[in-house]
């Protein structure tokens, strides 16, 4: 196997981790924001 294949593997792995990680981070932010908004709305409804 060509010795430079490691750079290709690293490049594709970094791309996958960066995009996957960002999507995951956005889901976490959405969940946190929704919880905050719901908590305030619930207090207002008391």
């Amino acid at each position: 196997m060509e010795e430079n294949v490691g750079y290709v593997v690293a490049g594709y792995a970094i791309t996958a981790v960066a995009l996957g990680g960002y999507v995951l981070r956005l889901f976490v932010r959405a969940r946190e924001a929704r919880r905050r908004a719901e908590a305030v709305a619930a207090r207002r409804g008391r």
Partner: protein
Amino acid sequence: MDVAARGLGKATSRSGERALGVAALVAIVVSATLSLVVAPPDAAQGEVQRLMYVHVPAAWLAYLSFFVVFVSSVAYLKTRRIRWDRIAAASAEIGVLFTALAIVLGALWGKPIWGTWWTWDPRLTTTAMLLLIYLAYLAVRRVVDNPSRRARWAAVIGIVGFVDVPIVHLSVVWWRSLHQQATLLRVGGPEIHGSMLAALLVGVAAFTVVYAYLMTLRLRVGRLEERAVREALSPQVGELEEADA
């Protein structure tokens, strides 16, 4: 409460988002297959040239993202509608991600071909400046509290900062550069082999679908975060908190 619930439901609506997510995933799998299996290795560079199929689409996405920031910023300054500011903010964040990715992938490609991870080449330097400009854009958004002032300042940076995009693209033409000339957007059209060109175009299309998906997701997050802040700053809540105290 009904109005609040409806508003919250609208803010978290997932219509189209999941379909785009699936489309993005399929596009990425197809692109990876074409890039890693179907396209032949480069005659001169060998296997490492396969990094082109992610490096070029990442750079293209950076251009596209910052173009969207530019257009949205102009639209915001013209209309003062906060919707345009939301779009600009979302696109800038995604653009920073793809610019950083393009730089890292370029470094991985540069090491075996140029013998160095980084050099102060015009293309690399102007790209690093692009990253810094939009990091500053995001920083300004974090430090300015007043929403309309934040949107106005950010819009100005979004417009002025876009000047660097054509400079990045044309840097390899204007100055003596270690970086190769443009692969796709060049006078006379692309000069690479048909199967490589197909893999590259599919990669660009796949990354564009990923951008569309990230934008829908990031816009939903933005709406939810704005709503959470609005709810927290509501006078009624303030009164409740005072009563609790």
